[in-house]
């Protein structure tokens, strides 16, 4: 017997607005100073009223458009009611039956070189407020639990997929693509450590029967997973667990209701969460404190225009326009839009996309990591790096010399300039000598003084050329080793 793995995800993404969704409080991540980013509205004080933050709605619509969703012309706010200490009003303002968007899709590339693509349909995406954070005493001494409401009221988009994912790896790839998409269009930082992206996974199996039919196992929702790796691990474990359970009990979706489990990263296993005695009734109803929102086609068109080129399109363009491998394109695009722009300026400026990609993915990336910088604060502007690399393509500098210049530029206090490149090249005599006469003279001299290696080379010992090239290079400072090699070999082969 075999089975298919069926996975649907619910992803919560915090939008990166300056202020909260229904009040003016800051959304900054600030766990060290609890409850300072609060006001009567997000504290749920008597008499306080919510007012929609238009920027949150704008970012939410951009999110949905990037997910190829339909945007509803009319949407409203509903109260989802339940008691929990991190929920100061006793209800969460969310969207129930008329979400602002629905029916989209994301195409996930499931093989490294762009071979297979899995289309994951998006059922809906809606906007809601985040709750606060409860902190329970973990000392075992039964101290009070604490509540921090700094996060309460942060705008969240909840994205619900159809059960279209077929493996734990696909689920991870989907989340990675989603993060890339949403960071790229600037709607969320998707910082999982800070809880900006959280995921629930609905998992079950379709078990193939001898007669060709399939039987579904009960659905399990694994809640609140906060990393891509954990998502993958949780699903893998869940698949294994459900398969063993099915073989033992033959329980199907008809025999058991959907259950909820947590994931323990330390043990790599899911565990049963305490079930409520009866199904939760959230008693959704339209929030009378808020007015419905209408969205016009013009507004949608404007926001769509602001999206710009999405990562998938950029990946294809980098392949066609700069002949980059899917891997190199991916590395650059994963670093975000600003990084991609930097790359494009360098690639256009030096006329060699492949060379630009090599520098970006190696030299620049290494320096950024070591210095803890972002591309925005990198002291070598894109046009300056382009100028440096153009000297390599034009055979004015060797790659080695270019690296030396790059290092020298980074040692400077100020932002690098092309004039500074000029000065470093001159000071250190790094320019390639284009004087064929001088090179040829040095070659003749070296051949004359080294009969043994010359004879070895002529006898077929290719390595013997290395020592001779080295001597020519020492004699003509700044010569291009490639050029020296070519001319030396030509001379020896005469």
């Amino acid at each position, binding site marked *: 017997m075999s089975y298919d793995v069926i996975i649907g995800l619910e992803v919560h993404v915090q939008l990166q607005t300056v202020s909260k969704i229904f009040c003016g409080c800051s959304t900054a991540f600030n766990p060290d100073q609890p409850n300072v980013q609060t006001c009567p509205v997000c504290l749920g004080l008597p008499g306080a009223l919510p007012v929609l933050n238009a920027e949150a709605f704008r970012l939410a619509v951009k999110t949905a458009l990037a997910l190829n969703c339909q945007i509803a012309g009319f949407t409203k706010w509903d109260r989802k009611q339940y008691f929990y200490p991190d929920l100061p009003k*006793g209800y969460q303002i969310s969207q129930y039956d008329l979400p602002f968007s629905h029916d989209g899709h994301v195409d996930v590339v499931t093989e490294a070189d762009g071979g297979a693509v899995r289309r994951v349909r998006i059922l809906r995406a809606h906007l809601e407020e985040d709750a606060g954070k409860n902190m329970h005493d973990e000392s075992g001494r039964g101290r009070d639990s604490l509540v921090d409401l700094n996060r309460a009221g942060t705008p969240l988009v909840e994205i619900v997929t159809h059960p279209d994912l077929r493996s734990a790896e696909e689920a991870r790839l989907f989340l990675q693509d989603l993060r890339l998409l949403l960071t790229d269009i600037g709607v969320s930082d998707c910082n999982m450590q800070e809880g900006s992206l959280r995921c629930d996974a609905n998992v079950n199996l379709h078990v193939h029967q001898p007669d060709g039919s399939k039987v579904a196992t009960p659905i399990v929702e694994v809640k609140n997973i906060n990393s891509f790796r954990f998502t993958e691990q949780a699903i893998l474990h869940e698949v294994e667990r459900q398969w063993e359970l099915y073989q033992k009990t033959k329980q199907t979706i008809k025999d058991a209701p959907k259950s909820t489990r947590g994931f323990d990263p330390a043990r790599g296993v899911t565990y049963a969460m305490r079930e409520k005695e009866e199904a939760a009734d959230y008693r959704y109803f339209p929030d009378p404190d808020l007015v419905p929102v209408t969205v016009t086609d013009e507004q949608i068109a404007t926001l769509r225009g602001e999206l710009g080129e999405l990562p998938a399109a950029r990946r294809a363009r980098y392949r066609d326009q700069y002949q980059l491998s899917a891997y190199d394109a991916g590395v650059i695009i994963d670093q975000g839009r600003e990084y991609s722009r930097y790359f494009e300026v360098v690639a256009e400026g030096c006329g060699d996309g492949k060379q630009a990609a090599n520098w970006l993915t190696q030299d620049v990336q290494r320096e950024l990591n070591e210095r803890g910088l972002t591309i925005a604060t990198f002291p070598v502007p894109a046009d300056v790096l382009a100028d440096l690399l153009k000297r390599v393509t034009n055979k004015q500098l060797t790659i080695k010399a270019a690296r030396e210049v790059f290092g020298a530029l980074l040692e400077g206090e100020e932002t690098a300039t092309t004039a500074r490149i000029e000065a470093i090249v001159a000071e250190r005599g790094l320019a390639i000598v284009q004087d064929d006469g001088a090179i040829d003279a040095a070659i003749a001299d070296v051949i004359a003084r080294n009969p043994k290696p010359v004879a070895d080379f002529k006898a077929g010992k290719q390595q013997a050329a290395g020592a001779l090239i080295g001597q020519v290079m020492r004699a003509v400072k700044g010569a291009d080793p490639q050029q020296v090699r070519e001319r030396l070999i030509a001379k020896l082969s005469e």
Partner: protein
Amino acid sequence: MSSLLNLPAAELVTRLAAGDVTSAALTEECLAAISQRDSSVRAFLNVDVERSLAQARSIDARRAAGESIGILQGLPIAVKDLICEEGVSCTCASRMLENYISPYSAHVIERLRAAGAVLVGRANMDEFAMGSSGENSAFQVTANPWDLERTPGGSSSGSAAAVAGRLTPMSLGSDTGGSIRQPASLCGVVGLKPTYGRVSRYGLVAFASSLDQIGPFASDVHGAALLLEAMAGHDPRDSTSVDRPVPSYTNSLNEPLKGLRIGVAREHFAEGLDDEVAEVVRRALDVYRSLGAELIDIELPHSKYAVAVYYLIAPSEASSNLARYEGIHYGHRTEKAGSLADLYARSRGEAFGTEVKRRIMLGVYALSSGYYDQYYVKALKVRRLIRNDFDAAFAKVDVIAGPVTPSTAFKLGERTSDPMAMYLSDIYTIPANLAGIPGISIPAGLSPSGLPVGLQLQAAPFAEETLLRAARMFEAATDHHRLIPPMARS
């Protein structure tokens, strides 16, 4: 000595502005009246003598320095104890918020302070504004100044009684199903519920958000117009507040409406209306006829569903609005809790009164899965039909006139064990809340037994100017608003 408090608001404002009377003197007189008479009226939950005198003196000092004071000119005002004022307790007459002090002020409080009001104290009410007699207050029962054994009405019991008992010239109330107009009628004062969205609800502790409006009480129409003018207008902190200019209600007040068309609904005179109330209302209609108004029969066919619709929508919203009082963040917390669920259940069980619990249970039921469509959604549909009735009526008439409440003030304790009888007190006032239209109760005279009877006028959305002018026409032609309860005569 004739008390300043027997003077109408318009006259007090004129004297204050002219400097004939200081705000401090008037405030002192209010405080003296409260200390003399409030032990029997029990309109106030909290009076801050020092604070109100300081406010009054500051206004007087500013006036003396030639600064302009707002249109309220230093008038003392009582505030229903569910409108938040920074640094002041806001109990909602509930054990739940017995020790709650608001860290911020409601929009109307900011507006009133800017307009030169002196906020003397906090008026009693039914707990969380749920009730029609004031008897649901967790702290005290307010008496009707006309007969201390009778109810002043509710839920704005203290606000109405304070004005009727001549303790303050004006007060603020809130009206969700009649909570301003019904007590105004029973206490013989003017009470106005504005159009939904005319006055910001920011800082008004919510009972039923889609129905609640803050409104004024005063001894005459001018006072109500003045107080409305001081607080109406757009507030970006309330999404349901409407951005629409506010006319000067006081300026046009004394211009009679020529060719006034008054709608009279058959439904307002059907079974359930006491004869002595019907008689006073009919006489009031005669007054209008004598002033040249045209009386036109109209129909409000869906008004018979109003009470049923109201008791689905209001408790549904209330069950949600009152969920925040759970003992975790503020308010009453039980001392006996074990589990978290137990903490919620006990804190709420201990601190909410019977009527509040009843309405929460009704609302939770109406919103429950499986019942939602049948109850809540259906109620919303009928609510729309009720609004349509009014729209059709206001195509033909300028105002609708009728009774405010079926009877005169009933005896305290008389209806406390019969919630249905209590709920029917609001049969004529609830439709205006459901439709979002403005309504006013004005004194129309005394019943044969000597108790006040109010006349209700209702107008189209945002037609407060018409409503007030029509009310003033009646008032100018009668003397009912000059009647003062015997206990308050000096």
